[in-house]
């Protein structure tokens, strides 16, 4: 018994063509949630990197995220991106202190190499 009322199908065709059933909506929602839970991890990492990259070059020209992370690894610091981004926003001066620590030792090392 399909199409008892002819207008029902016609109305659907006219008005809301982008409809899905509720079951379909639920399925798509679950699939998106599952997929995005994995993407969430990379999304947040991108966000943190962007935030760190925004804060770092304020102290010195030609200094950016990539150099900062390289120096972090060289100086044996294990802080991860989430914490760095949080510190960059909430306690701005601590990032500068970290940066000073890193730079200080690098200068001394260069001196030693030169000598």
């Amino acid at each position, binding site marked *: 018994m399909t199409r008892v009322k002819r207008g029902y199908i016609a109305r659907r065709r006219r008005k809301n063509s982008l409809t899905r059933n509720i079951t379909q909506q639920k*399925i798509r929602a*679950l*699939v998106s*949630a*599952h997929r995005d*839970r994995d993407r969430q991890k990379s999304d947040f990492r991108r966000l943190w990197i962007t935030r760190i990259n925004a804060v770092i070059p304020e102290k010195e020209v030609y200094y950016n995220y990539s150099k900062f*992370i*390289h120096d972090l*690894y*060289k*100086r*044996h*610091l*294990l*802080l*991860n991106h*989430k*914490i760095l981004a*949080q*510190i960059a926003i909430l*306690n701005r001066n*601590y990032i500068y*202190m*970290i940066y000073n*620590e890193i730079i200080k030792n690098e200068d001394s090392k260069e001196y030693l190499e030169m000598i």
Partner: protein
Amino acid sequence: MACRRYFFTLTRHYSSLRASKSQSFHPLKSLTSHIPFLQRLPHTLSPTFDSPSFLFRNFSSRTKNPKNPKIIDDEYDDHDDNVEDDDEDEDDEEDDEEDYSSEEEVAVSNEPSKFSDRSYFAEDKIQEAADIGYKVIEPLQRSDRVFKPYEPAFAVVQVGSHQFKVSNGDCIYVEKLKYCEVNDKLILNKVLMAGSPTQTMIGRPILPDVAVNAVVEEHALDAKVIIFKKKRRKNYRRTKGHRQELTRLRITDIQGIEKPETPLAVKPAKTSAKKAEKVAVAA
């Protein structure tokens, strides 16, 4: 990429150093060369990133001998003593371990040894697991005024593989900690950075003197997450629910960093009292 590899080896080296002195590598290597059949399983797994923890468990199975119950005490002895004791253990345990490895070869490598050891040396296991998760348990106590008002100092603490920026009175959710009950006091000793208005300390990689006290509030399950897999047009659909087990910790204190004394709220009252006294004296 070289940096990431370097970082990786750094963390591995660091955690192995922290867990056991560097000398412990040598007795292990001598053991593995001596009986390759026995030590095949963890040895193949050691290249993966869990190598320090596997080495640790390996050690515990080695020292099943009640002569040397505690691994951590052994490391403070001389290198020679360690090697001798382990050789003795080898001879005792050869038969036992051969049976084990012949039965369950590849798949469940460290787990049977862990379960078998748990009953023998619970103290050892607790200490090992605590080191892996970077916490130390203190006995729980009642009627302890542990909760202080907020202090403006923070510390960056690592528990397992997660890092948290933590200050007094905070509440953090952490992967379930074994060997911990509710109302237990913990010390989180892997502190990467600590800061306060007066002092900042940055650890390379950790700060050895700073300790963060926490109290276990509850062991709870996370909200349910539905894992839904679907392949379209192939008639394949799977639903599964998952609740992660978490532990809630409340941070009570950060020790080892200077906190500024903030008698701001108290000062006006004191000064006004002094002024009143002075006036009285003058008059």
